[in-house]
């Protein structure tokens, strides 16, 4: 298997979306484009509320990713764990699919445990060596304000984790809602986030939480995706340069 690129969107939010396309539909679209959507719910105390928790779970399920609900102080560690586990899971799915093609149904379950241990070692190795592109999508609606310091720390911490991998890794950070669009790119694609970066400066604080539209716009940040014309007209603020698009489209996993 040749070196692959794993693509993830990580949504950090504290409540329900209330504007635009359903975030579950948006996550389904992302997954269709080879992008996994993970969600972290950040809570101050108590719980997320049934509705918020349900939405987070559904976004992650539709996006083929994982979710967790944590306190701000657990955020940094959760980002790393969730990302790694989602990567493992994606690779595992691809590997089992290939095994299924060779060995028939329930191939992985049909293997003796010793063989599966070897597969796990391979999945681990592939995960470490793959390219990884992650867009962090930070909800900056009014209620998130007290949690943004923790989010900022988590971003920096995540950058260290990515730098420690053997595979090439990039991350971008966006906040939503944005000033003009549904999302503002706060940190464009980078391999290393500067510690001095201030997430809170120049933030648009607002009551609306357009999680769905923000996910749709975040998809456009992955160069391999060509948005359908309709969507590009509506969301395509970040026009892609021509060049390497399309060519990677079929190798997505």
């Amino acid at each position: 298997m040749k070196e692959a690129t794993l693509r993830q969107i990580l949504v950090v939010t504290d409540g329900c979306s209330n504007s635009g396309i359903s975030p579950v539909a948006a996550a389904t679209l992302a997954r269709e484009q080879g992008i996994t959507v993970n969600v972290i719910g950040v809570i101050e105390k108590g719980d997320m509320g049934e509705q918020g928790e349900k939405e987070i779970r559904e976004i992650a399920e539709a996006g083929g990713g994982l979710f967790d609900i944590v306190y701000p102080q657990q955020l940094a560690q959760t980002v790393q764990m969730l990302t790694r586990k989602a990567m493992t899971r994606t690779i595992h799915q691809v590997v089992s699919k290939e095994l299924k093609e060779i060995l028939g149904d329930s191939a992985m379950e049909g293997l003796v445990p010793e063989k599966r241990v070897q597969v796990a070692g391979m999945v681990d190795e592939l995960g470490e060596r793959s390219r990884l592109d992650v867009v962090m999508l930070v909800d900056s609606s009014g209620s998130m304000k007290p949690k943004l310091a923790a989010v900022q720390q988590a971003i920096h911490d995540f950058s260290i984790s990515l730098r420690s991998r053997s595979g090439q890794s990039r991350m971008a950070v966006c906040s939503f809602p944005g000033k003009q669009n549904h999302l503002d790119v706060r940190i464009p694609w980078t391999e290393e986030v500067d510690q001095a970066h201030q997430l809170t400066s120049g933030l648009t604080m607002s009551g609306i939480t357009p999680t769905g539209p923000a996910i749709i716009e975040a998809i456009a940040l992955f160069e391999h995706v060509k948005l359908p014309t309709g969507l590009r007209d509506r969301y395509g603020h970040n026009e892609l340069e021509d060049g390497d698009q399309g060519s990677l489209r079929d190798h997505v996993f």
Partner: protein
Amino acid sequence: MSFNRAIPKLPPQFRGKWNQKTYHVLRELGRGANGAVYLVSQDGVRRAVKIGAEGMDILMEVHALKSVQQGRDARVTVAPLLCDVDDLYIDGRSCTFYAMEYLDGEQLDQFVQRTGTDWVPVLIIQLLARLAVLHQRGWVFGDLKPENVIVTRADSQVRLIDFGGVTKHGCAVRQFTEEYDRAAWHAGDRRAEPAYDLFSLAVMTVRLASSPEVWKSSRTEPRQTSLLCDIIRNNDSLYPFRVPLIKAFHGQYAGAEEMKSDMLAIVQGRTTAVQQKKASGSGSSGIWIGGLFVASMLLLAGTLYYAWMM
């Protein structure tokens, strides 16, 4: 942390699908990031069984455990011995589990709480010997913390448990705990290398030798190793070890052996110094010396044992 799937609950008795071994569950021993560990009995032998929410995580741990145990010298016990890997059905779903040697003992921090901080250098030196073997085989422990170290009840030997964080040299550390994580302390990255483990070990040493109140006071943001240095300066049992500890904070040790010999030299030098002091008339530190004597004897025994095993 709760990811999507809950950890499946083991039935009171079960049989593995492939290897047909029957297990009786006695009690739950603990929970980690990847799963739960149970004390079980298999043909009258006590074992520990681990089961997790994601079969892949469990299999990866087994992969690490197996790799660590491969090698010419299987007698140097770094990891709990792996006994079985198998599947069982829980609520119609196939779940992977593994059984390993059961280590009857006490968690490192509880052991120190009970026996006193005199033990800390001895335990740390033992741990360094274990880490040296692990590093030699190309692995880094990763998630080093008191919860992942056991002191055996029978012979007070330090053993590493929970191999969920064990990472190949040069890769990104798979699992960590912020309190002992080099990156969270702004002292480097998360690339798996011996110095990463030694950093965690040094933080753990400070933690073990400090009172809970003092330890809490170091947890101000941002985490900085200078806070740990302050604790060392004000702590009589840590102060003599300031040089190796600070070297470990700064990643100045290439390997565990090097740090171990520095620690050993201090323990041995100190014991003789105190004995001389007693001989010259100040008898107030009898208990202190007693503890140190026991410690140094154990250390000697440990070293001899180790040397013999090599």
